[in-house]
């Protein structure tokens, strides 16, 4: 059976690949053991774009921790840093404090909306080009190819008995995989502590245990996910393929096989006419190129990450048989149907969902930009004591205690003047503060400082149980002010 197939030719110079898509939805069973996929190397514009994007993405990932950004002496100078120890997140000019975690939420919301928008327009380009799983798997497959050769050699090697040749290729491949995985984990930890400092201590055992732990976790997951699990991550572990069905529609661009042009498919003999038959010569070049192990000719499938490698594979063949390229190409569902009916393709990019995503993204982005540009270098918060609510003093006056929090986000120590507006005859006292300094307090650079403030109101001024108090705080030599409103409680007039 197989010997007969080996001799099959799809077209002059184009052998048929003896293969069935391993993840073909029609053949796949629920409890089937994973069948290995041996993606064949393709050449073409999408493969080139993917190489470029991989270089860019990996380059950015490994390089960004070493970028510097001057923030003055009191703050780290790493451009992108998640500083858990100092409880700060630095991203170039953006600096986020724990109290401002909503900025992180904002970033995540924007990322999600961007993903929706791009999915609505171009389908799963995230999956096909930018997802770390795709990028690292692509890299790992390239390493595999380097040691074991292209598809056919790899299949042969896997079937062969153990030998020195097989051993060194396998060991070499796994070693390089592990080195890359380790470099991935190693770069990850550079985002959480000064990169140069981490590098100088990491290899001598001087980094904190968490650094080694996350290095280990990331090394392990990179090796497992990109090396051995690959397409299973996308098919079984990732929720996005399921969600994306709701994010795209019949107008979104998808990698698609042009049924109208391709069918009926079949081998093409030399000199035979192309009339009354499709352009697909059933060589299965698209199937062997697919890293997900599917047959794109079955239509759009959950497993398809739309990496466009089948486009390159098919275009290559079409050139060989002298047919127009684009039998597999980015296309929309609606146009596939229209062509079948002999209608002209239409492209509608301005659709309600696209507009909704774009407008939501613009709104979220504007709010973020507004928030970040008007972000105060000072924040004030007043909390009144609740237990006891108020204290009756011996002369009949009433005292309330407050904790005034002043957040100094600047990189220098600052003096702040506090003004207190409240009931008449109000007297104040700041715990632990010399009386001669009055209402001027110090807050060190980048710190949140609590001040215990006691306000006492004489018996005569107590008219109602609840009187408003306003703390106004302004830094020395600046017109910036921040206020905190609270109340003065008492048992009422006496």
């Amino acid at each position, binding site marked *: 059976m197989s010997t007969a197939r080996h001799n099959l030719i799809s077209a002059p110079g184009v052998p048929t690949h003896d293969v069935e898509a391993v993840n073909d939805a029609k053949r796949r069973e629920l409890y089937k053991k994973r069948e290995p996929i041996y993606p064949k190397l393709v050449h073409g514009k999408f493969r080139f774009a993917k190489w470029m994007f991989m270089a860019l993405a990996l380059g950015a990932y490994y390089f960004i921790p070493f970028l510097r950004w001057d923030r003055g002496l009191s703050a780290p100078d790493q451009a992108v840093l998640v500083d858990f120890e100092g409880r700060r997140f630095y991203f170039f000019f953006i600096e986020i404090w724990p109290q401002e975690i909503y900025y992180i939420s904002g970033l995540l919301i924007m990322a999600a909306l961007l993903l929706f928008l791009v999915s609505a327009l171009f389908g799963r380009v995230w999956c096909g080009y930018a997802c770390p799983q795709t990028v690292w798997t692509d890299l790992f497959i390239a390493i595999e190819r380097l040691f074991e050769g292209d598809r056919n050699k790899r299949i042969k090697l896997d079937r062969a008995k153990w030998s020195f040749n097989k051993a060194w290729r396998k060991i070499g491949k796994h070693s390089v995989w592990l080195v890359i995985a380790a470099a991935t984990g190693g770069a990850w930890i550079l985002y959480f502590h000064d990169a140069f400092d981490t590098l100088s201590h990491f290899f001598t055992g001087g980094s904190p245990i968490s650094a080694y732990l996350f290095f280990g976790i990331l090394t392990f997951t990179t090796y497992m996910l990109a090396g051995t699990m690959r397409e299973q991550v996308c098919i079984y572990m990732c929720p996005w393929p399921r969600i994306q069905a709701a994010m795209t529609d019949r107008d979104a661009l998808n990698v698609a096989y042009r049924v109208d042009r391709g069918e009926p498919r079949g081998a093409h003999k030399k000199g035979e006419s192309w009339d009354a038959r499709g352009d697909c010569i059933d060589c299965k070049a698209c199937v062997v190129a697919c890293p997900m192990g599917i047959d794109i000719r079955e239509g759009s499938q959950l497993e398809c990450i739309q990496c466009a490698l089948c486009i390159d594979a098919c275009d290559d063949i079409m050139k060989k048989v002298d047919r127009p390229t684009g039998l597999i190409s980015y296309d929309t569902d609606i146009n596939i149907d229209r062509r079948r009916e002999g209608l002209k393709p239409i492209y509608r990019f301005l659709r309600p969902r696209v507009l909704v995503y774009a407008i939501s993204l613009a709104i979220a982005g504007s709010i973020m930009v507004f928030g970040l540009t008007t972000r105060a270098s000072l924040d004030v918060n007043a909390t009144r004591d609740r237990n006891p609510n108020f*204290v009756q*003093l*011996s*002369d009949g006056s009433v005292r309330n205690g407050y904790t005034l929090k002043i957040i100094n986000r600047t990189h220098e120590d600052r003096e702040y003047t506090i003004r207190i507006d409240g009931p008449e005859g109000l007297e104040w006292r700041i*715990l632990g503060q010399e009386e001669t300094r009055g209402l001027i307090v110090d807050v060190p650079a980048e710190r949140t400082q609590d001040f215990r403030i006691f306000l006492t109101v004489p018996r005569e001024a107590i008219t109602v149980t609840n009187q408003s108090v306003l703390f106004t705080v302004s830094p020395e030599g600046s017109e910036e002010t921040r206020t905190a409103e609270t109340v003065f409680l008492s048992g009422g007039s006496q």
Partner: protein
Amino acid sequence: MSEKHIDQETGTETTGHEWDGIRELDNPLPRWWLWIFYACIAWSVVYWVLMPAWPAPPGMQGFTEGVIGNSERVNVAEDMNALQSSRSDHFAQLQAAGSYDAIEADPALFRFALAAGQSNFANFCATCHGAGAQGFTGYPNLNDDVWLWGGSFDDIRTTLQYGIRSDHAETRYSQMPAFGADGLLSREEIRNVRDYVLSLSGGTGFDAAALNAGAEIFASQCVSCHGDQGQGDRTQGAPNLTDAIWLYGGSPEQVENTIWRGPFGVMPAWEGRLNDPTITALATYVYSLGGGEAETAPEGAAGE
């Protein structure tokens, strides 16, 4: 299992049980799940060897100890010791500091004293004085500016150390007679004194004759401790009767009852139960609640 039950629809074996015509397919477990399950079993065996796991005869402490000798009791003790020793510097500083000003001058030490004080207050003091030190009837509010035995840092510390009417030899001690219960004064006389006392802090509307009678009794029975103006005496823990604060309540009934029974409020001595620096931390905390007084009031100066 005598025979295999095969589901016609799916060709899968069933468990063989039937509930109202419903049979359960005996699908295989997912392989990844199964492998994790086996790994857990293997790990549990490793765990038994490494960690305390099984009951054992009393000769072996009652349980298998595990080869790495882990003991949570020892770990907790070590953690506690590590915690204590990490605080020991601050406690030593507190011990050395002695005065409130010295503690306050060092912001780090001050913060530590407040935190340690607050935590110990919650443990030992809040039962009577309340979580916010707001006090209850019969238990003084420590936020206000009334201090029966003095409100300076040293006074507060002394009170904490020796207690009030406690069993400590150095305790602060005084006793108000139970004028009614012990038959020293009649109900009528007590009511007159009550009216007089309430008038001292601005109470009005009392019968003039009663006030005069009350003033006479006050002069003969009360001034020795509470002072001729009712201003109180801190050396004896006698409260000022002219202010707005009433430890045992300021309503006529409460004041009358207080005179009748003669209160005998007790605070335990903490010396011996808490170490010196902890008492200092507590004193710092209580002092900083808002009512702490700058200096020790000179003796006998309470009636100014």
